[in-house]
């Protein structure tokens, strides 16, 4: 299993998936740093009381689009990891080896999973450094938020890995991105639902979270971050906007997301063990 995990990680590096995504993250952080520096100078001049609110919003916006990058990395890294290896014949030499097929899938999950968690954690911590050091705003302890942020791509990875065991690479890419889009749009609809007090919109958001819980985990991440600033009189303002979280996704949603991920991974292992190659 570790042999497959190691070769999976090596593949992501050698095929330049990881270096290119790191470069994209550096560009993204550079742009964000520039904006934070400009705003910081502005606030120094005006001593604006909304400084913390604005930087909190920028931080959540940074996380929101950062989660886009890690989610795309999860999908594009794993989209053809089984299907394309079957299509091009690589798998023909691997499967007959004395290794259980489910271990091949688990190895790929672990290899990509470690890469995604390290990448997501790096991005999260870099965003924190940008806001704290350049913006001059103290963000409270974010351990729980960091863990939740790293969990998002792992969910997408499990689903994409499941798809690649029985769908073609192209079909799997379409399905995985469509599911991600459902989650993102559903999350926005839910936020609007809270804003306009529409129960049906809120329920729509919850249903989409059940279909793909990635956005719910993002909202939970933001809520955890904002809760740590509850003593701030402008806390309610911080929760607003498309990147905020008006209501905390329950702990059951976390449990559901965990089971969802384990279920997708288990299904991937089962399907690959049964299929003809």
């Amino acid at each position, binding site marked *: 299993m570790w042999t497959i995990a190691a070769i999976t990680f090596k593949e992501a590096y050698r095929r330049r998936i990881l270096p290119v995504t790191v470069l994209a993250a550096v560009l993204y952080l550079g742009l964000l740093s520039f904006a934070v520096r400009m705003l910081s100078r502005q606030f120094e001049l005006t001593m604006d009381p909304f400084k913390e609110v604005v930087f909190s919003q920028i931080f959540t916006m940074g996380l929101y689009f950062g989660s886009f990058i890690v989610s795309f990395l999860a999908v594009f890294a794993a989209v053809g990891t089984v299907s394309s290896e079957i299509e091009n*014949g*690589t798998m023909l030499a691997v499967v*007959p080896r004395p290794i259980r097929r489910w271990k091949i899938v688990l190895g790929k999950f672990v290899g990509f999973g470690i890469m995604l968690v390290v990448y997501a954690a790096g991005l999260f911590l870099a965003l924190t450094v940008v806001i704290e050091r350049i913006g001059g705003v103290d963000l409270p302890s974010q351990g729980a938020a960091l863990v939740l942020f790293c969990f998002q791509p792992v969910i997408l990875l499990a689903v994409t890995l499941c798809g690649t065991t029985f769908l073609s690479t192209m079909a799997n890419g379409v399905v995985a991105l469509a599911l991600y889009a459902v989650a993102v749009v559903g999350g926005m609809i839910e936020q609007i639902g809270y804003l306009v007090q529409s129960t049906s919109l809120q329920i729509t958001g919850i249903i989409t979270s059940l279909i793909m819980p990635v956005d719910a985990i993002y909202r939970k991440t933001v809520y955890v971050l904002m809760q740590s600033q509850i003593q701030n009189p402008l806390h309610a303002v911080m929760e607003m906007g498309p990147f905020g979280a008006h209501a905390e996704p329950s702990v059951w949603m976390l449990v559901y997301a965990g089971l969802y991920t384990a279920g997708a991974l288990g299904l991937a292992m089962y399907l690959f063990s049964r299929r003809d190659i």
Partner: protein
Amino acid sequence: MNKVIETDNLTKKYPAGVGCSEICLSVNEGQIFGFLGPNGAGKSTFVKILVSLLKPTSGAAQVLGRPLGDLSARRRIGFLPEQFRYQEWLTGEELLSFHASLCGLGRHAGRPAVARALEMVGLRGRERGKIRTYSKGMQQRIGMACAILADPDLVFLDEPTSALDPIGRREVREIILQLKQAGKTVFLNSHLLSEVEMVCDEVAVIKAGRIVAAGSLAQLLGGQIEVEIQAEGLTPELEAGLNGIAPLFRVEGNRLRVRLADREQIPRMVALITAHGGRIYSLVPRQRSLEDLFVELIERREVSQGVDDRRHHL
């Protein structure tokens, strides 16, 4: 002799048709076994079942005395697929190290195994190059190295010489013979009948998913013999007489081509011709080649020869 492969009515059906049907074969240890058939006959399907890439629809099989898919048996199997492609972003050495690790060879046993395999396929000195820079022939060789890497007792080679030039083919033949000398069993899928004829002890021919002939080369080719005779004075009475000992013969002017059941029929035929007043100027016996047999079997509509009993003990 130990049976290395034993299949019992092994069948694979696809939604579009049958891959292979009711295959009953047994292969002895230490043999080079040739598995022949035209494209789409079911050769690769059969091998893929034996190496656990496909699951059979029905039937059973044992490989190295263990049921299909057994991990301890898979440790002792090497496989070179036909439509293979290796991770082109790896170097040859990295690829072999990866496969050594998959075979459970630790670093200690893995390194010498990699070096030995590279040496055997003639890629020593090229192991640091990326596989994407390898020629087709070199890729075939690295595939061969992968197959023999873990010192397997049974090696499946699916068209191992298809991308090689004549020198490369000869080298692969030498590797196959070396494996045999080391007591290994080689199961060879190939279109190249002359090569099969050169190295194989036993062969089976598959057509439309079914075995149509199986046995040792001596059994399959040694029985019948074709004789070309130059003679004069061939009369219709003589031809009628020849029908009794050689139902298959052809007369072209003063040349007569006769297929006899065995070489002991030659003196009988000569006596018959001279008894009818024929004058023989030359007589050339010609052994049938595997290609002759193959073409005959594949072109024949009805399966009859050698398959009275569906089990083929080889």
